[in-house]
């Protein structure tokens, strides 16, 4: 089965939307400081303003510009999302392939650890650990990555186990190839679509988790993020102002997750022939 992820994505409108949206968000996040009219944390005397020419999306309770906060929030979300997913994917690739190829006691021990992690709901662990550690952004990313590789590792191990038995890998072995060579030269290239999908879902999960934690108020309060914006806005729900304040981060978060899902969904369809529509073939 030769899967070409590029081609699959190009044929799906959902995925194209996802890519477009994600690119748009990335550009905004990267060029954020150039685009924002105000510093996201600088306070003005004008609190609770509705959208106006000066403040396109209005201001919050301490007079901070919501558009600026939204743009900076995109930076946080995407940074956490991509970095966490990248770390988790690398970890799952290393652990999945190494357990599959090495086998033995190492495989048994690592897989039991994975089982344990999968049984424990990650969100509760993170809430508890975060409550104790009061993590800054980097620690949060590490924490999310450490809790996010297990499912991927299991999938990759299963795939690597079946790849391991394939003729071309036996052939490479019969030339005297080491496990490392086999992983890098033969197994990883074959796993690219799966790794890509794991990465995409990792992004989605991390973006969502980061927003959720901030929303619950367990994140670093000095970091501007969509979750934090919603957390703060919610305190003022008895006032009429929350609409201009709560809806923008909510919509941004939804669009981000939707676009990532779009890409992931298409890739998943491509990988599993049962989900493949005839028209796409």
């Amino acid at each position, binding site marked *: 089965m030769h899967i070409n992820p590029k081609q699959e994505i190009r044929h799906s409108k959902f995925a194209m939307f996802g890519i477009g949206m994600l690119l748009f968000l990335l550009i905004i996040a990267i060029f954020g400081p150039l685009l924002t009219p105000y510093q996201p944390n600088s306070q003005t005397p004008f609190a609770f303003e509705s959208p106006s020419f000066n403040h396109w999306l209005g201001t919050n309770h301490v007079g901070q510009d919501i558009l600026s906060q939204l743009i900076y929030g995109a930076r946080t979300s995407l940074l956490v999302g991509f970095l966490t997913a990248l770390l988790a994917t690398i970890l799952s690739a290393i652990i999945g392939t190494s357990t599959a190829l090495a086998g033995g006691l190492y495989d048994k021990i690592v897989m039991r650890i994975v089982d344990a992690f999968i049984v424990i709901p990650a969100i509760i662990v993170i809430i508890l650990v975060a409550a104790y550690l009061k993590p800054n952004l980097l620690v949060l990313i590490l924490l999310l990555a450490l809790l996010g590789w297990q499912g991927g590792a299991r999938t990759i191990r299963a795939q690597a186990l079946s790849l391991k038995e394939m*003729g071309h890998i036996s052939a490479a072995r*019969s*030339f*005297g190839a080491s496990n490392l*060579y086999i992983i890098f030269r*033969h197994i990883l290239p074959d796993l690219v679509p799966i790794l890509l999908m794991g990465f995409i879902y990792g992004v989605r999960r991390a973006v969502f988790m980061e927003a959720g934690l901030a929303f619950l108020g367990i994140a670093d309060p000095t970091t501007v993020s969509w979750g934090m914006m919603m957390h703060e806005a919610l305190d003022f729900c008895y006032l009429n102002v929350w609409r201009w304040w709560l809806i923008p981060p909510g919509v941004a978060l939804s669009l981000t997750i939707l676009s990532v899902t779009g890409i992931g969904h298409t890739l998943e369809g491509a990988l599993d022939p049962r989900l493949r529509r005839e028209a796409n073939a």
Partner: protein
Amino acid sequence: MLKLEALEVSYGEKKILNGIDLELKDGESLAVIGESGAGKTTLALSLMRLVDGSVKGKILFNGLDLLSLPEEAINELRGNRIAWAPQNSNNTLNPVHTILNQVAESITEHKLKNRREAGKQASILLSSFGIPVNRFSAYPHQLSGGEQQRVLLAIASANQPELLILDEPISSLDAPARAEVIELLKHTNQDCSFIVTTHDISTAAKLADKVAILYAGRIVELGLSGEVLSRPRHPYTRGLIRCYPDMTTGKDLQGIKGVMDRSVNGCSFHPRCTQAIEICRKEIPPLRLIQGRHIACHRGGIIPLLSTKNLSKRFDSLLAVDAVKITIEGGETLALVGESGSGKTTLAKLIMGLIEPTEGEIYLEDSLVSNRGKDFYRQVQMIFQNPGESLSHRLSVLELVRESLDIQEIGARDERDRLVRQVLREVELPDSEAFLNEYPHHLSAGEMQRVTIARALVLEPRLLIADEPVAFLDSSLQAKILKLLLKLQEQRGLSLLFITHDIAVARKISDRIAVMKDGKIVEQGPATKIITSPGHAYTRKLSQAALDLSLED
């Protein structure tokens, strides 16, 4: 009765015989086998002291040193106690005498009988050699080649010699005449010793008790003829036998690479030998007694390249490989035959270290294989069952063939690419840029199989395990791949472990066959024997089930 000690014969600078040691007891017969130019005729002539080159060493005939005897004494011996039947080349008989006279002459010359008596005895002799009475007064040119040969033999045995030297006695005869003359020779010379020189292995086998294999003026192997010919131990002897067509072997004829060259240093066979090592290039191996056979080889004859002892593999309740003991010798093909599920591929994978054995050992040239490093895989390579599967779809032909070199870190990039092109030509594939950049799914089945062979061979292994290499191919491709493997074996001295379910294919390619059933080797032996007289019921079943083109009535 006859003993040669360090016999050397040279014509000018050219040494024809080089330190021949031989011993022949009363009534024993010895065949000297060798390709043309090996020195057979010179050996025969030197026993009669008829060579015109310079002769060194000793020839002791019943204690007499033939080389130091005066000329008259030699004349007395020649044709009387030592008789010689030359190769019949149409001019050895005197054209102006009748054949009866020629036989009688050799009798009168030595036994001093009167002519009448000699004539009488000659006619008895001639008729015993199958010449009809009405031909006795014929002249040689009136006889057929076969009849002339018989006359020569009659002359040689006229005086009941103690030693009869037959130089290519029957190579000019047709097959039925040959059999007849062999019978005659055996019959008439029951108590005489004889030496037969021949390039014809089957004559040697039928006539002589012992054979000596002569190569470039030296004896390379000496032993009882049945043993030497059924189980040659010197690489040259095996090569000779492989060249020889007979009705019982099925294997295609294979030559020996190169040509005979007397001027090489060290063992004169080493340029053509498939297991030559450093010492073979430097020193001349003496003829030594090794395990009941005289062999002149630094390596003690054909080496056992890979052997397994008590090798077993258990998958849960299934004993897939059960205490297998096989040996693959250098340069030979061992066919492993059995139906699918008999454990053939498992055995191959055990040898390759792709799966771990439950029990047993594997030896590569007598050293136990435990941790297979890169150097093991440089010596032992495998062609996998399904060529399409064993080629990664991501790699081009160049990358595929180069992969083994990359892994083994052989040479620089340029060197590797050069080796790839070279091996592709060797397996009869194009080495063009376009072909090198092809991906496997664009190749035909035959091309894919050749690519898998090429990538195994580029490491120059000594043993190639071929797991059903032709099972996926149609018969015309199958034939080509089999020929290719045989050619590579001849050129590189490759040992082959050829795994197949088809005993008909095994017959065409193997020297020996091992039959496998339910993980056990039920029978193994020379291919000829397994095919013609299978000992195990399962082998018979396989043979009967094999492809057969003959039509039922």
